């Protein structure tokens, strides 16, 4: 294997410096979560100046910024907002703080360390779309975060940054914190809306249930991620066109990359989109691999994204037609590049795997998680994920048939594209990529252990005979 050939993508070791916009004050000595501290750092100034402008102007700024959703799908936020049509029904804004994509921990930093930044972002977005009420849907496990947000909202209400006649204007909007109760599926926007209505978090079928049209209580609703709403504050601070200069075209602004797994310095790092490569992030920013270990693979955008293998060469052309040829460490960190290599930037949760990791454990762990989290509405996902879990658990026990990789692939292919929500893809993609890229390892390892030698799978005849 060519592991030793992988060199840091920054051979001259130029210093790579973070550009903290959202995380500017996070972890700053002396910076606390109280309102007073936030006001001392120009807090709510953007809200004050933006309330003097027309909502449609603010929406246009967000369109001009080109900012894309930070929750996973990467849909342009301004376009999403403009899906709202004028009607007699009230409009609702929901902040998706149900951070539950394994490998992602960016929203937690903002909620725990700079909650007023999020509240300001929410109020700005609420005013821009003229929402009647805003909600923060926070994970049930984050009770500490929910308490923090609630006390921050109380503080902001006392100073008229939230609630009636915000900053003395004629606009009023309240924020309600809604705690989930441990379901991964409630991070899906329509599942989240069902949960907010006090029901089981079953995702809704689209069409007709596009939230911008038929959302919460059948009213037009916008659901945005925590990081996206914080970006809105910075867009309205500097102006959309100015903001669009950060990053690369179609991949504007900064992003928070959450690195976990087998690196020396895991953590959260903010960089302009496309300003560094995966290799630079892993080797220069995160300190590289533990001594004596090699990079084996990377899951680049949360557990549901397709795995990328070290040693692979990615060829193709970008959206604008530019051809590329990258190794794993050459891939620029932005939306389009990660999509071009067949994966996605997703929620920004990067999980790094080294050569000590048994890929069979990885796939079994992933299948176990998705089987548990399937809501059970769609048969392919409910049954398929369960079988993937059972088969990979059996394989982990040493009982591996040489037909297993094909069986896993066949199940994954039967789930993909056949479900109401993207949970189906969430399980199919990692399985498809893991099986096709690490098939040899799944089969090869067993050959080394005599008692685990590959048996032939029983034929249909034999199975029938056993019954």
């Amino acid at each position, binding site marked *: 294997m060519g592991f030793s050939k992988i060199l840091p993508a920054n051979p001259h070791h130029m210093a790579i410096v973070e550009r903290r916009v959202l995380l500017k004050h996070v972890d700053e000595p002396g910076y606390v979560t109280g309102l007073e501290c936030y006001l001392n750092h120009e807090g709510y100034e953007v809200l004050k100046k933006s309330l003097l402008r027309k909502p449609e102007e603010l929406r246009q700024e967000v369109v001009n910024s080109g900012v894309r959703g930070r929750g996973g799908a990467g849909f342009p936020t301004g376009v999403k907002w403009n899906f709202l049509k004028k009607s007699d029904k*009230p409009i609702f804004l929901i902040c998706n703080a149900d*951070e*539950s*994509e*394994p*490998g*992602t*921990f960016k*929203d*937690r930093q903002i909620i725990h360390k700079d909650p007023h930044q999020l509240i300001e972002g929410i109020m700005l977005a609420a005013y821009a779309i003229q929402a009647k*009420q805003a909600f923060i849907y926070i*994970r*049930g*496990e*984050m*009770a*500490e975060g929910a308490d923090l947000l609630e006390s921050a909202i109380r503080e902001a209400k006392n100073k008229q940054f939230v609630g009636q006649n915000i900053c003395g204007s004629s606009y009023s909007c*309240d924020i*309600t914190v*809604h*705690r*989930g*109760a*441990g*379901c*991964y599926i409630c991070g899906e926007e329509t599942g989240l809306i069902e*949960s*907010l*209505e*006090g*029901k*089981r*978090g079953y995702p809704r079928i689209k069409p007709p249930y596009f939230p911008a049209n038929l959302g919460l*209580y059948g009213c037009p609703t916008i659901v945005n991620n925590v990081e996206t709403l914080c970006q809105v504050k910075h867009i309205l601070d500097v102006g959309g066109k100015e903001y669009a200069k950060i990053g690369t075209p179609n991949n504007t602004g900064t992003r928070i990359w*959450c*690195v*976990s*797994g*087998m690196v020396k310095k*895991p*953590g*959260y790092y903010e960089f302009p989109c496309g300003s560094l490569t995966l290799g630079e992030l892993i080797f220069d920013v995160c300190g590289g691999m533990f001594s004596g270990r090699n990079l084996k693979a990377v*899951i680049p955008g949360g*557990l549901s994204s397709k795995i990328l293998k070290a040693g692979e060469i990615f060829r193709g052309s970008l959206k604008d037609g530019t051809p590329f040829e990258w190794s794993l460490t050459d891939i620029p960190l932005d939306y389009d590049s990660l999509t071009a290599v067949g994966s996605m930037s997703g929620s920004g*949760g990067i*999980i790094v*795997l080294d050569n000590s*990791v048994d890929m069979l*454990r*990885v796939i079994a*762990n*992933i299948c*176990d*998680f998705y089987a*548990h*989290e399937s*809501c059970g509405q769609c048969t392919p996902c409910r049954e398929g994920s369960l079988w993937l879990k059972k088969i990979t658990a059996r394989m982990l026990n040493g009982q591996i048939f040489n037909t297993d990789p094909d069986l896993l692939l066949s199940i994954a292919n039967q789930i993909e594209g056949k479900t109401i929500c993207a949970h189906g893809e969430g399980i199919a993609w990692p399985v498809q990529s893991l099986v096709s890229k690490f098939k040899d390892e799944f089969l090869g390892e067993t050959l080394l252990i005599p008692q685990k030698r590959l048996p032939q799978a029983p034929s249909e005849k034999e199975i029938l005979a056993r019954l």
Partner: protein
Amino acid sequence: MEISTNTLQQIEDAINSYPEPKSALLKILHLFQQKDGYISQETIDWISKKLSMEPLNVLEVITFYPIFRTKPVGRFLLKICHTLSCELQNSSEVCKILQKELNCPELGGTSLDGLFTIEYCGCLANCDKGPNILLNGKLCQEITPENAKTFAFNLKRGIVP
């Protein structure tokens, strides 16, 4: 069923914070579970009357969400993250050690002294500092196979990190 005026007020506030009362269901369930440790049949009946719902519709919500439970648990509830980033730091080994040290042979079951319940849970969104454990709602990070015994030892003496 006796409910303190303080709790009743919290329930009213919860209902008033939404345009439709039924939305307050999760909030009310959290309130009762925090107070009683679990959701009893009596509570289900009371909530269903309060929100003008069928008791079955309350129960179907409870059974959908892993956080809600209809049976009591130990005084200390440990939820161990089992997803990939924590598992790479060996969270299942941590789980085994804690199960042994705290006398919880069965996942989801409670130790005989009624003190501890251990179960697995999904990602706790603190993946850079795994393995993570949620102890009665409080996040405890970097509980590794090396320090898990000390963590259990302290916990048995009521010392929480």
